[in-house]
């Protein structure tokens, strides 16, 4: 507990990490308070064809889209989709990847080789391609996007935890605990996991950013939730045919994505600096993504 306070204290002094927290808070608040913050909450499904493609004005803060709906309001509701995708996909990837990494790291049998090679398989193809394939196969929808993203992201956690676990095994305290005869489960849960927690936390934050970018790419390709869902990536795809005149239509959702991912990246960077400078080296091996 005191460790957490210590972390927060150090973090608070890092200005960019603080900025990251602010941005993330902004995203969460936009999503939670969307019905109240939005000027035209009905525009999530309402159409006003006579008002289409209007530039930003007092009535429509970020202008209107091709159906005349308010872009600003739709962006706020799109934040909900973004958070849901990010949290569930990364959460699921974590729940799958961490145990696999722990098992693979702890044991030195062919099982751990096999597990790592399985994760290699998933890493062999660019994540984006695999996610596209899965989303296309299952059909464009919100749950399928989440599934596709978690299935393609878990290897990052697995490899990270595997590398850290192996490194820890060389530490004296682990060797001695094992020598005493502690059960593997106890060993891993009580001694390995707390020490692996830091890199996991850092990767979670970075993973959120990365997952949101990939989710937006899927939405852009039409593989995300179908219309009239106000998903940010899809909105950018819609806006393309109206360039260069209605440029705000494409710029706004892209900026929203940018600020969101920036927030998670800055927070992740700050956490990394605070939690363990050693992580910098080990992440160079596990790779960034």
């Amino acid at each position, binding site marked *: 507990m005191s460790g957490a306070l210590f972390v927060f204290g150090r973090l608070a002094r890092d200005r960019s990490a603080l900025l990251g927290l602010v941005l993330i808070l902004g995203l969460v608040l936009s999503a939670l308070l969307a019905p109240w913050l939005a000027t035209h909450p009905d525009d999530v*499904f*309402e*159409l006003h*064809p*006579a008002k*289409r*493609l209007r530039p930003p004005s007092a009535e429509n803060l970020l202008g209107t889209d*091709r*159906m*005349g709906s308010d872009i600003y309001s739709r962006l706020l509701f799109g934040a909900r989709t973004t958070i849901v995708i990010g949290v569930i996909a990364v959460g699921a990837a974590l729940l799958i990847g961490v145990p696999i990494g722990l098992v693979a790291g702890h044991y030195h049998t062919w099982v751990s080789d096999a597990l790592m090679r399985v994760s290699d398989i998933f890493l062999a193809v660019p994540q984006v391609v695999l996610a596209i394939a899965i989303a296309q196969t299952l*059909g*464009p929808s919100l749950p399928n996007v989440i599934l596709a993203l978690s299935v393609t992201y878990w290897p990052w956690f697995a490899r990270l935890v595997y590398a850290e676990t192996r490194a820890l095994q060389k530490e004296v305290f682990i060797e001695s605990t094992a020598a005493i005869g502690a059960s593997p489960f106890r060993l891993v849960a009580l001694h390995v996991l707390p020490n692996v927690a830091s890199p996991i936390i850092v990767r979670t934050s970075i993973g959120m950013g990365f997952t949101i970018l990939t989710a937006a790419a899927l939405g852009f390709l*039409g593989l995300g939730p*179908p*219309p*009239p869902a106000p998903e940010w990536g899809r909105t950018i795809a*819609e806006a*393309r*045919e*109206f*360039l260069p*005149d209605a440029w705000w239509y494409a710029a706004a959702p892209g900026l929203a994505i940018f600020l969101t991912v920036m927030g998670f990246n800055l927070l992740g960077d700050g956490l990394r600096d605070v939690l363990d400078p050693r992580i910098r080296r080990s992440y160079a091996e596990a790779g960034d993504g």
Partner: protein
Amino acid sequence: MRRTWLRSVAMGGIVLAALVVVSALALSVPAPAQAPTRFVFANESNYDTMDPHAAFDVGRVAVRLNLYDGLYRWLDNPPALQPWLAESHTVSPDGLTYTFKLRRGVKFHDGSEVTAEDVRYSMERILALKKGAASLFATMVAPASTKALDRHTVQFTLSKPVAIFLAVVPEVHVVNSALLKKHEKDSDWGAAWLTSNEAGSGSYMLTRYDPAIGFIAKRFPGHFMPWGAKYIDEIEFRMVKEDNTRVLGMIKGDYQGTGGYLPNDQVKRLREAPNVKLIEQESMRIMMFQINNQRPPMNDVHVRRAISYAFDYDGFNKEILGGSVERNPVPIPNNLWGIPKDVKGYTYDIEKAKAELAKAKLKVDRPLTVGYLTGFSQTEQAATVMANGLRKAGIESKLTSELWPTMVERMKKPETSPDMVVYWISTYYADPNNWIGEMFHSGQWGTFKASSFYKNVKVDDLLDLALKSTDRKVREKAYQDAARIVVDEAAGVWIYNTKYFGPWAKSLEGIRFSPIGNGQEMRWVYYAQ
């Protein structure tokens, strides 16, 4: 230490600067001298095959129109059938035998003469390959029934009298049978070879082809139709996928022509471009929602009427499409004969929609699937407008998109087809049968036009009568009666008839637009100056 850093940064900078300078110099070198009079067309789909019998669609019509000839050809608007390779034809009194007299001295590009044997071979080839227009001919002409009576007379024997045979005969593109026989492999009718080559007699000869890029063709001076005083020496048809790129390219002068069914916002930009002229013509291309008439609850006429009242026609046609299209309430284009002029069709009226739902025996208790085409944002917008109207009427819906070939495949069976699908039906031949006939005859189930899966014996009889008779008045009345029934039964939702807004370089003259062909027949066109 600082100097070392500056050194390497400077080195990197110099390398980049060198690249920039080189390209700047290169840019100042003028473009190489172009071949005398070139024309470049930006096409929205790609030319994945040069075989005129493998495709029947509007997207690749440039190949068929420019490299090949048919017995007759559709020209101008309203479309009229002109003798082309054939000088004339006669029909037997029972309507089963069509005999065509060919022009003499017509040459293929390799110098050999076009004979009746080539025409016979071409028809057999179409039927054998079973692609493109084969589905149309297969119902009328049996394999091995076509005869070359002599060197310049060819005879088609129909299996039953069909009024539209003449209308579709232009799709028999005549190929060089001797050349194809030379390149035949494993009895493939030369298909593998013809995918990337040509065996035609048309106004232009293929010189270069790449399925990922497009094709280039040069003028065939020996074409049987006399050339005007001015003409274009070399034509290039290129695939350029994005609307925006095609529009920008037209404005910059990179292309001298492109497809005329652009979104209204793009058309506006082209109108303002100084070196582009827009040719506006009423075309024949209906946009509609095909409703799956077999699947509950759409098999209840009241549900279908409710759907018809739920679409905001004016909002879509006037606002979203900026008035660039005409409301077309009946499944026959406004500008074609055969329409019952008194039928006004459905309007956007949510109250009426709810009233119809109340009368329905089947309740709508599940979301309806509204299918649209991936990559065609107008269909996406139409689907969104429909979903919005349905929601107001109390019906939930789910949007689903597929690529066109995938959607065609889904629409072949009532079990796999969505509850409703929005797309266009273009002019394959200028006859009401191209629309209402192929859309609502129960014998057409399984084709992409008949995804309404509509079955009404009375309508079938009327459509059969119209196909059999050659009397225009009889046919007209039959189509009008059939249209009245189909509209009353709300078998589909018919939105608009397209206007063609063709962007062409201002200096071009002689463009002849026809709803079949869309102006892409380049032999008439020339640069004025």
